[in-house]
């Protein structure tokens, strides 16, 4: 473990010393032994504060959206989940590959529930790989939770989601953590468009939930950051996973962020798509 941490520090230090990147995004220690925090290292000396342990949980890719027009390259430690996010951001024209330096760090598994669906520990895109790829662990049943909800009656489902959204406080942490939420201004923050109200009611919360699923569902890389960020612990991936499950059933095996070229499901069509509206 410490060997890998050392490699990361050396790599960041060299990049910064050579002026290859403006800063490096990684993980740093906190006061708590079981927590890390994303850190932005902008000097070679600072590299010594990088840490790598099972608590390096946060996905770092989202921070790229805060600096879309950097003067120098940004160094980013990239595991499978960060790399899929980067692929998606490139496809969505939000970041440019050439303004990133991706330091590949195959993931050895972290102590977070968000990793339960992880299907790709190794970065799919990187400039350098710091150590040997890891074997992928068998992920949990991808759509198990969705099937659980599907098994309910319509009224039960409504009660289930109603219960979930009754507890939603509309803090939008899910949106802020999501690497594919990349609008300049989110529709819920706008007064004028008026797609939905801002008030905190079951109805408006539910509509926010379904809309969020629709906005990101066909691009979701299943990193689980939304649920990790949710302060109320709501099972909101149940919505995006449902989108993915249906897309899988309608058009075959579908996963996002595996490359930077594939169109998302709602951005294209097939003449032979299933038709149930005749």
């Amino acid at each position, binding site marked *: 473990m410490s060997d890998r941490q050392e490699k990361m520090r050396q790599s960041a230090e060299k990049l910064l010393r050579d002026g290859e990147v403006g800063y490096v995004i990684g993980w740093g220690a906190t006061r708590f032994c079981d927590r890390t925090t994303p850190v932005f290292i902008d000097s070679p000396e600072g590299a010594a504060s990088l840490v790598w342990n099972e608590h390096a949980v946060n996905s770092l890719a989202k921070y790229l959206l805060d600096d879309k027009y950097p003067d120098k390259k940004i160094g980013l430690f990239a595991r499978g989940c960060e790399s899929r996010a980067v692929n998606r951001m490139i496809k969505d024209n939000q970041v440019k590959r050439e303004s990133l330096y991706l330091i590949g760090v195959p993931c050895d598994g972290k102590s977070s529930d968000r990793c339960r669906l992880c299907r790709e520990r190794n970065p799919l895109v990187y400039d350098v790989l710091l150590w040997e790829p890891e074997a992928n662990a068998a992920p949990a049943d991808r759509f198990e939770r*969705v099937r659980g*909800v*599907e098994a309910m009656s*319509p*009224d*039960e*489902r*409504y*009660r*289930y*989601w*109603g*219960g979930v959204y*009754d*507890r939603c406080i509309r803090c939008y942490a899910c949106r802020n953590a999501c690497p594919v939420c990349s609008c300049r201004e989110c529709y819920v923050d706008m007064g004028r468009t008026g*797609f*939905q*109200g801002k*008030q*905190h*009611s*079951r*109805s*408006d*919360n*539910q*509509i926010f*939930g*379904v*809309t969020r*699923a*629709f906005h990101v*569902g*066909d691009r979701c890389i299943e990193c689980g950051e939304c649920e990790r960020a949710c302060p109320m612990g709501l099972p909101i991936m149940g*919505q995006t996973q*449902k*989108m993915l499950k*249906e*897309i899988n059933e*309608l058009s075959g095996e579908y996963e996002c962020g595996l490359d930077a070229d594939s169109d998302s*499901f*709602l951005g294209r*069509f*097939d*003449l032979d*798509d*299933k*038709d*149930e*509206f*005749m």
Partner: protein
Amino acid sequence: MSLTEGFEPKIIAFCCNWCTYTGADLAGLNRMKYPENVHVARVPCSGRVNPQFILRAFQKGCDGVMVCGCHPGDCHYSTGNYFTRRRFMLMKRMLEYNGIDPGRFHARWISGSEAAKFRDTVAEVSERLRKLGPNTKYREALREGADAGKGGAGI
């Protein structure tokens, strides 16, 4: 029972200008009769219909929503309805997954000549909704006298 007796559902139908709206006009020219529940909102193409419109309709008190357009391959704009097809196939499933009854949302291809299909579809949807009764799901808090306080945070 008391809820559905004498109940007339409120239905909004988003119809594309080139096929379904024309088909609905043709139903009029042929003096076909169908229930009064349906109100058509004209859009240039079924591809114009944003899923937000459907959510809004349920929230504001529609009992049923229809999205109608040209048959695939006949779109006035050539490919618009292929996107409609994908979008609303997912939308329908998401609504059902969230507990909305499958009978409340309908997407249909109705061409400019299919006046009878428009009439029959409206009649069928309206009959189905009459049996289902008023939609309470996704409704925003009713203003007065509603059963406020029953649900969670502000219904």
